[in-house]
């Protein structure tokens, strides 16, 4: 008897959760946050929970149906899809489209909206993302850290937080989404560069007698034997006037290549000197070309708005670490009154994605900054109009398959950068990007005063040892970069 009653109750609950409440129908799609309407997602992505943009909505009833199944969520003003059933539904819908029907209760009346679609790509993405979370501040900094997010769920773990030492966590990068090889720059009283290579991690002093500063922006060679670094003397200035906030600029910068196995920093003469400021190095997919941005030096800060970076390239010999003496211009942005930053070649060798802004190299603070795609075969560049917004699009990275990329954008509120994932097909056409999913995203993002910064994919969970890293940072021992 009890079992029967229980069965009836559970069945009733399931039926009522998916039942379509009576009410009026409207032809418009619902206004939801984040905007997941028509986006393309990878197979293993976490549930795309969303919040009704209309704050007067008191209940929401959502059904997601695919070719061979469906699931539903009923909540107050946001959805909460069960993770396992969501993944089962996605798996069964690979290469097809999910239909999302939203019914919302507002002022006691239910409204059924025009269904919208979510495209499920057959291209899987990497395991997760690693990013820095910090307040989009000026000079001082509060709590910050490097975090790893499992893309199939909402799990986020701190790889390292600055609560364990005095300083700030800065540029970090792994080798083509492989977190086994990892470089992390620490600034402040305990400044160091943590390098994880060949299964071991150590703290390094990257400033040498022959370099003007620390090794800052890293990029791993595909072989894992080299890391190209920019060596920057960086400063900040602050705007007084509407629209602009901060400028980050270099007083000088060069490039160096660190030979991981031999512990030597190579300083190629062609990438060092006062006639040019080089920064943001990146190796091509085959490791035989070194791309970088470069500008003609001008007085700072007076001529700040006239400093424009082009994209250049030179040969790289992986067997010796030698850099070619001939330097070619790949994209002459200066001639168009623009500036290139953050070049990122795709790992399949077909494209190079970069940020284009009006001037300078720190496009993160430029509202006009947009993503552009350079086709390696044709030599043509185009703006990613299907991805860009009115606000800043800046830092970006490819997943290991080169079919997905992640980028940060200020489009959400104009200040705090959020992460967006985007599918790109074999022809270089991008689908509509989607914001990194969160549980109760309205509340999550609205109450988060931190920016997501320098995101990159990781193919598997990082073996980064937080405790050891903190111990290394807090110790005085630093292995010097030899020349």
């Amino acid at each position, binding site marked *: 008897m009890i079992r029967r009653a229980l069965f009836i109750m559970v069945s009733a609950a399931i039926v009522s959760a998916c039942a379509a409440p009576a009410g009026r129908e409207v032809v418009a799609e619902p206004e939801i946050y984040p905007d997941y309407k028509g986006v393309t997602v990878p197979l293993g992505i976490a549930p795309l929970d969303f919040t009704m943009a209309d704050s007067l909505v008191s209940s929401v009833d959502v059904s997601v149906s695919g070719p061979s199944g469906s699931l539903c969520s009923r909540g107050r003003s946001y959805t909460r899809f069960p993770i396992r059933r969501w993944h089962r539904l996605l798996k069964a819908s690979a290469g097809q489209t999910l239909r999302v029907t939203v019914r919302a209760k507002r002022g006691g009346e239910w409204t059924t909206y025009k269904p919208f679609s979510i495209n499920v790509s057959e291209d899987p993405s990497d395991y997760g993302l690693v990013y820095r979370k910090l*307040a989009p*501040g*000026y*000079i*001082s*900094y*509060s*709590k910050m*850290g490097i975090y790893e997010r499992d893309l199939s769920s909402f799990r986020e773990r*701190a790889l*390292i*937080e600055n*609560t*364990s*030492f*005095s300083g700030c966590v800065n540029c970090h990068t792994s080798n083509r989404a492989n977190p086994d090889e990892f470089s992390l720059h620490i600034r402040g009283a305990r400044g160091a560069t943590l390098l994880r290579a060949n299964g071991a991690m150590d703290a390094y002093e990257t400033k040498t007698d022959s370099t003007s500063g620390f090794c800052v922006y890293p990029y791993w060679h595909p072989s894992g034997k080299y890391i190209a670094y920019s060596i920057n003397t960086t400063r900040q*200035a*602050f*705007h*007084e*006037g*509407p*629209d*602009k*906030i901060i*400028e980050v600029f270099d007083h000088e910068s060069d490039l160096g290549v660190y030979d991981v196995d031999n512990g030597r920093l190579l300083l190629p003469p062609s990438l060092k000197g006062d006639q040019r400021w080089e920064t943001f190095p990146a190796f091509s997919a085959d490791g035989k070309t070194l791309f970088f941005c470069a500008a003609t030096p001008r007085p700072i*800060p007076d001529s*700040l*708005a006239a400093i424009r970076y082009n994209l250049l390239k030179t040969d790289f010999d992986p067997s010796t670490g030698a850099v070619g003496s001939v330097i070619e211009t790949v994209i002459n942005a200066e001639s168009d009154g623009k500036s290139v930053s953050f070049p990122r070649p795709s790992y399949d060798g077909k494209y190079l994605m970069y940020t284009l802004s009006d001037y300078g190299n720190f496009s993160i603070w430029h509202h006009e900054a947009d993503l552009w795609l350079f086709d390696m075969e044709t030599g043509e560049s185009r703006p990613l109009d299907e991805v860009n917004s009115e606000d800043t699009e800046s830092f970006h990275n490819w997943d290991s398959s080169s079919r997905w990329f992640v980028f940060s954008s200020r489009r*959400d*509120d*104009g*200040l*705090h950068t959020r992460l967006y994932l985007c599918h790109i097909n074999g022809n270089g056409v991008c689908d509509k990007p989607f914001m990194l999913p969160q549980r109760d995203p309205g*509340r999550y993002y*609205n*109450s988060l*005063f931190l920016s997501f910064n320098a995101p990159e994919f990781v193919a598997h969970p990082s073996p980064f040892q*937080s*405790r050891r890293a*903190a111990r290394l940072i*807090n110790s005085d021992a630093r292995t010097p970069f030899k020349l």
Partner: protein
Amino acid sequence: MKLYRKIFLAAEVVFVALLLASRFPSHMVFQERYQLFLWTWRYFVEVVSVPGGMADWTGRFFTQFFFNPWVGAGIVSALLIVFQLLLLSFVDKKPLWLSSLTALPVAILFAFYTNENAMLSAVVALILSLAAARGVASIGRSSVRMVVTLVATPILYMVSGPLCLMFLAALSTRDWKAALSGLPLSVLTVFASSWVFQYPMKSLAGGVHYYRFLQTVRPEPWYALAFAAVVLLLQRFFRGEGKAPVNAAVMTASVVSSLLIVAWPLLERNINRQKEETIRYTLLAENEDWDGIIEAAGRGTPSLSPVSVACLNLAMAKTGMFPDGLFKGFQNGPQGLISDKKIDFISPLAFAHVYWALGLVDSAQRMVYEAQESIPDYQKSAYCHKWLARTNRVNGDHAVADKYMEALGHTLFYRKWRPSDDVGHISKQRLTEKDMVSSDENIHEVLSLLARRDTSNTLARDYLLAYDMLALDLDGFVADYQATHRSQEVVSVVYAEALALAWARNHRDFNGIPWTLPEGIAERCVAFFGDRGANRPKGTMRSKYGTTYWFYYFYHGK
């Protein structure tokens, strides 16, 4: 509890509260300024997921009432007395002299709380630990008590932090075996926590949130714990109430003397007069109590910090005493007018007022943001959130302003706060040059732009000319004066002194001087140079010319 004890404790509450509220009113408000207590589940989880988190959350809960110094002082003294009462409950039936010793740890904690960076979580942690000890001690069966102790020890570490040792110390009065068994477990818990929490071992073992500077472990809460433990240990040797060797008067005397002997040296060590002054000036500026600042300057120390000077200069500017009052008080250079050099959680808030008054909204916003991000224990500030909502609103960044407003909506006292619509002076005065980069290096350029573009912006002009004078840049002063000079303007005395000095550098007399100086200035200037040429001592020069620009120009910093 006997009547005299009640009377005594009540007197203690009043004494501590009076002393805190009257001697350290700024401390109370200061504490409240640097936190943003949110009534949200996420905030709760975030705070309690650190060792000692529950004590910290409770401390922050109480701190939100500190915007009124009397309420704040009352809460601190009440918590101290609760701590003492709980201690007393473990020595309640012991000789009176032993009971009176419980005032010692209270005295130490009282001294601790005269430090503006001492967080309430320390005393709350001790209270929670003692309360837990009361609960466990009341368990009848020793085996159950043992099990509960072993389970409670790591939990209490999460609740109270390492001061949970108080739990074991108090429990030892009823069951020393259970207390002893919990001791290695507590040590183990601290070590284990270093695998989970990203804090240095020093913080995990010394307390993460007992003090605003997370990397600093202050000894006072540990002294208090140690004294309390000694008292609890002593009571084991004095079983039963016995005959009180001393009476209530002696107890009172012992407590008062312990307060004086123990707390006073600590208290004196904790007081930094200049910091006190800076906090007071900053809070007065925040309340726009300009008369209060001028009054405080009149009775304060002769040498002020740059922050205090900046507040005083702004107060003079706001009350029409600028520029003639400029050299009537202490000046320490252009950084006492406006500066973005010092980045901490106190100074930028004072300078934010100056930037705001000048219409430099972005710089004001930057100062407030810097202050908030510099709060050493990573908290946010309701006060800064209000500022940032206001500046973002003026800048047209409504989505960001709304975020701050929404956060404030989760507080108890600021949920109904709305930024004032009256920002007329900002929209008229602010710079429109999009690429104007502002920093200490070009603040003169920014002031010059403000003053020259709108000659009715007297504040910008006064700050520009004061900047020239304080930087000892007479050529710059003359150029800026001429560029911003209005016809029919009566030259102020201080400006006239600077003009006279600039003229006197290259001329033998004042014939042909292009400005109409107020009567007597030229004669005084001649007299000044006469006395200076006669090598009069600095003291004499100060008594005769101490309020003139000439004295500042030649003797400042010498």
